[in-house]
């Protein structure tokens, strides 16, 4: 009988095991490091500018900050909420539909075309998507607007949602679909009521990744939602007129020549970070919640 210890002693195998665990721990740290550095850096620099005014005042002109008057980014936060919300409202049904098509109807003749379009859109630089929204919305409307910004970000979200929806649905065993069809359910009903609920964690995660990705985009917003130093007089102004958003404001604060605005820029970074992190926490809670109906 062959004895394994002839080749490797127990002691040797233990050592090897420990080495592998150490290696994996090291890799984990290396993955987390950039995240920790970003969070640390933003927080350290921006914490001094975090105050009540930030969440209650609008920005106004640079003079306002330089004269030490109260200034903040409330209009930016509200604007971000409006533009991002518009984007997800536009992108969710389209991306979800495309993802369902890709995963559930592989035989459909539009399927390969859709896949090519989606991959192209996915690889297209975000700034070009801004340009697309500019041509489609800003030009005809004759003004920069939150709506056009929403479309620009929706173009960022759609291919990501489509892809993540496809892979979330594909991860559900084929037998579930057969079981649904077997009890006489039409195909769309099977997808809606048996496959999608089973895949909901993956679906929500995909939405969130798409949302977080788009929420951080500045480039496509430069010539769509454009930016605004003030709150509009009426809330509809956020949709129909130029509106501020966090990433684009962060950028313009950072490149401004004013020291006070640089600090405000870091604060904007903290808010953006907090926004994205909160979203992820909410998503985790949503997907963990038990719901069998």
């Amino acid at each position, binding site marked *: 009988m062959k004895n394994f210890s002839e080749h490797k002693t127990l002691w040797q195998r233990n050592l090897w095991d420990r080495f592998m665990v150490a290696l994996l721990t090291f890799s984990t740290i290396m993955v987390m490091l950039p995240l920790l550095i970003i969070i640390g850096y933003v927080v350290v620099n921006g914490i001094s500018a975090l105050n009540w005014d930030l969440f209650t005042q609008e920005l106004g002109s640079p003079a306002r900050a330089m004269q030490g008057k109260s200034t903040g980014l409330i209009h930016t936060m509200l604007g971000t909420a409006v533009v991002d919300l518009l984007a997800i409202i536009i992108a969710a049904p389209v991306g979800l539909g495309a993802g369902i098509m890709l995963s559930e109807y592989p035989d459909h003749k539009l399927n390969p075309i859709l896949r090519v379009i989606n991959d192209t859109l996915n690889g297209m630089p975000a700034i070009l998507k801004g340009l697309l929204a500019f041509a489609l919305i800003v030009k005809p409307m004759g003004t920069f607007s939150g709506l056009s910004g929403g479309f620009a970000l929706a173009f960022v979200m759609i291919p990501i949602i489509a892809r993540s929806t496809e892979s979330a649905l594909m991860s559900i065993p084929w037998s579930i679909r*057969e079981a*649904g069809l*077997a*009890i*006489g*359910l039409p195909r769309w009903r099977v997808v809606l009521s048996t496959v999608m*609920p*089973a895949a909901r964690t993956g679906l929500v995660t995909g939405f969130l990744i798409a949302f977080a990705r788009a929420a951080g985009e500045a480039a496509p917003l430069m010539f769509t939602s454009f930016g605004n130093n003030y709150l509009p007089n009426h809330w509809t102004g956020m949709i129909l007129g130029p509106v501020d958003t966090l990433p684009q404001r962060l950028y313009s604060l950072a490149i401004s020549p004013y020291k006070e605005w640089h600090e405000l820029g870091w604060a904007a970074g903290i808010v953006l970070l907090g926004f994205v992190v909160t979203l992820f926490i909410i998503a985790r809670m949503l997907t963990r919640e038990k719901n069998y*109906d």
Partner: protein
Amino acid sequence: MLKNKKLAGAVVSEKTNIPNKKIEENGLPGIRMESRDLTVKYGTVTGVKNISLPICNEKVTALIGPSGCGKTTFLRSLNRMHDITRNATVSGEVLLDGRNIYHPKVNPVDIRRKVGIIFQKPTPFPTMSIFNNVVAGLKLVGIKNKKLLNEVCERALKQAALFDEVKDRLNSPGGSLSGGQQQRLSIARALAIEPEVILMDEPTSSLDPQSSSKIEDLIHELKKNYAIVIVTHNLQQAGRVSDNTGFFYLGELVEFGETEKIYTNPANKRTEEYLTGKFG
């Protein structure tokens, strides 16, 4: 009845040659479904070829044969489950009440509500409760009547011999049941929509003897009103529950006839060898 007898016992590897119209007009009351020259291919691999087999009302038809001989393939072709199998192609006809279910104008959804199937592996809907699993076929097409759904759920679970075990936890997820319970849940779910023909693919292979015999009782009960097709590797079971038996071998229907005759006096040598345990 007479015509029935005639069919049973015949070796059905060639075409049956009964024109569509005749079945409708003359009624041939015994025959509920019938496959004609049915061939199923997976790409270039042949699953079954040239199967012609009648399925009679108020009778249990057993399909037996060694693993991989095409029993599941044939069964799935009887309610168009191959429609969504990638690269599966079906040729030939399957008649249900004299109409070809593969006719382009036929909606497969209607066929599947009439011809229910219970798969080899249990597949509860993972996110649904036991209750919702059972009534899924009703609830998801818009039936909301709570009283009706409760009744259907209880009846179906009782028929599937599962009611007593789950009656106190109808709201826990279907996936929380044991493998054998999940199989009975799948049976209950199929019965809930009251199909007219029931296809069962090794329904008792994951069940303990007691549940198995309950399912066999159920088959006896259901057969009074329905046509039943059962695939089984358990030859005793096939002998106990079935009226007609088809023996499949390498994708072909080698022999078909009354179970009694096939078991006591098979016409084909392969059938005899299989039944006596010489291969398979």
